[in-house]
């Protein structure tokens, strides 16, 4: 490793570690890191700042921003509140059913909207249900943790659910339908295994005494809170119609036509925003996720600087030079991806590891590498509460809700409360990723 490579890698690693340990300062940390990486790159003659900026995959950022805006249009239609009420009714306010329905519901929702939006929509309703049902620590820990893992799995199930898959789509590594038909069944298998293990072995609700008065009060109160809330069709139809059109375009329109995935997202979202009139303007002005955009832009610059130094190529060569069969090399790569994601979180890991994955994809079937990588990143995101941005958000929302057990003890949802579910989820999803990689090779 040359001095240039070591210095640029050090800036990247230091920034990633610092942002992981100081989540409250993560935006300042990564933007400062990106500035330093650009400076070091220029002084060491690797690349100028304009060259690094030109290397940024703007198409990925366009997809992220536009899908975020489309998510907000769905939020404004109130469709998720109505769905939550239905889920509560279907659950008959039984804790076991609440866990199952909200976990599966989160999987579905996060496949369509980004994870943070999905969490902000679903979690407050779940916390209200906890208060109405009168739950205990064990149930809270397992339910919230499984919902978070389902959020990660749903994000990995579709090419538009979360950043790793969007990166694959945006870079043209995999087409929309090619990713969907492979990743969705794999994530469903992982979710099924996790829920089966949780419901049969762990049984989070076993200490709860289901009381008919509790169930009746829960259903009556939820019904009253949403008594007149209706889906606003005029707000739901435009984003639904244009999302449908975008899905068709992603599947049908060939990349060679020049109509790329980001362009489809851009045009589809713009049309949906125009269709809802002044609401569209308000959403564009106020709802762009600047934090996520700036965070990813900074990451891309730091990763781009390291890439220009040739380090990723050398790592890929080293991996391919390991004295083990090629399939074992792929397995090593996938497990390393999972563990690195657990420490650095999904965005940084995926941005850096994709460079290595592209080399491996020359040796293995691309779908084995890319889908395996997306699943491994999902496994890593589920390992620790801090590994995905949705974790700290769930922690903050739970603290703010001031949840209490029926006997009055404060109910927490912190790092250690999540850990048992995180370890179990990591093992299950990583096994699915490895099985997928081996099977598809």
């Amino acid at each position: 490793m040359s001095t240039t490579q070591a210095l640029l890698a050090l800036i990247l690693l230091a920034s990633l570690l610092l942002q992981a340990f100081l989540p409250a300062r993560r935006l300042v940390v990564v933007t400062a890191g990106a500035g330093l990486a650009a400076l070091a790159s220029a002084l060491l003659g690797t690349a100028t700042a304009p060259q690094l900026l030109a290397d940024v995959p703007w198409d990925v950022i366009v997809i992220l921003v536009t899908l975020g805006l489309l998510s907000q249009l769905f939020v404004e239609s109130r469709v998720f509140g109505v769905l939550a009420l239905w889920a509560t009714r279907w659950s008959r306010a039984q804790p076991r059913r609440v866990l199952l329905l909200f976990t599966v519901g989160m999987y579905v929702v996060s496949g369509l909207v980004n994870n943070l939006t999905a969490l902000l929509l679903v979690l407050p309703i779940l916390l209200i249900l906890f208060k109405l049902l009168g739950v205990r620590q064990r149930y809270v820990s397992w339910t919230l943790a499984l919902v978070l893992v389902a959020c990660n799995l749903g994000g990995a199930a579709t090419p538009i659910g979360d950043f790793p898959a969007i990166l694959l789509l945006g870079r043209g590594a995999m087409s929309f339908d090619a990713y969907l038909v492979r990743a969705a069944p794999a994530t469903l298998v992982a979710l099924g295994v996790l829920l089966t293990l949780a419901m049969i072995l762990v049984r989070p609700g076993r200490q709860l005494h289901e009381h008919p008065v509790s169930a009746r009060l829960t259903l009556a109160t939820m019904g009253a809170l949403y008594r007149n809330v209706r889906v606003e069709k005029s707000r739901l139809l435009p984003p639904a119609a244009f999302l449908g059109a975008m899905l068709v375009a992603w599947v049908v329109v060939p990349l060679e036509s020049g109509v790329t995935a980001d362009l489809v997202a851009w045009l589809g979202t713009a049309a949906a925003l125009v269709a809802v009139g002044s609401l569209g303007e308000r959403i564009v002005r106020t709802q762009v996720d600047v934090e996520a955009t700036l965070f990813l832009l900074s990451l891309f610059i730091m990763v781009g600087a390291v890439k220009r130094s040739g380090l990723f190529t050398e790592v890929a060569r080293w991996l391919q030079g390991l004295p083990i069969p090629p399939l074992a090399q792929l397995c090593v790569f996938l497990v390393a991806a999972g563990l690195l994601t657990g420490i650095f979180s999904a965005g940084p890991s995926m941005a850096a590891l994709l460079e290595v994955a592209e080399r491996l994809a020359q040796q293995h079937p691309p779908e084995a590498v890319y889908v395996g990588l997306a699943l491994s990143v999902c496994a890593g995101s589920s390992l620790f509460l801090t590994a995905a941005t949705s974790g700290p958000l769930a922690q903050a929302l739970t603290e703010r809700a001031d949840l209490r057990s029926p006997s009055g003890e404060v109910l927490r949802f912190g790092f250690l409360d999540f850990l048992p579910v995180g370890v179990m989820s990591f093992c299950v999803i990583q096994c699915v990723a490895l099985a997928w990689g081996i099977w598809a090779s």
Partner: protein
Amino acid sequence: MSTLPEGLHQAFIVAVGELGMACAASLFVESVAQEDGTDGVAALRDALGRSFPVLDAVAEQWLAGARALRTDPTAILAACEGASELVVVGLEAFFLDALMARLPPRTRCALLCHSPFDVDWERVLSNYSGRISPVNLESFQSWAGPRSVLLTFAYGVGGSSTHVLPAWVRATGEDVRMQFRSLLAWNVLQAPMFVYPRWLVEVDAASFTHVFQA
């Protein structure tokens, strides 16, 4: 003998923030009564009555034979005749539902988003399909005028006094009172409260233009 589940205090606070004290109390009393009958309502009153005096009063009225809340808004509508703006201080959801269903569309309506409880105001307002605008203590005076009405919910009238939410006292200083055409109170309880009126403040009933009995 009825045994209610533990943790009802927390559950009631969820309901009281977004439905109002009387409406949440009525909902809980009705639900418990459907499962456990009179014994259940008495147990509910014992469990939560001291913390929530409005629930105590509603449960007592239920045990005395009263059933559904009386939410007929006819008298309030008459008092709002000709008003162009109506600002509501405090929340009693089922009463407000009944009022909004019959309030002429030309009357703009606002709700003061201020509560001692944790409230998702967006969810509260989404039940009114955009007919009610949110206002806060700093901004609600922009709704004042010679055709503007201030309305709050009162909890029992005993002698010359009644009880209201503290937000009413904060909102209706001497400077504000003169800016509105009338200050109305909609008494949602059939009888005065029996236990100490926690969460509420006592005000002179004569300080309102009218106090209407539900």
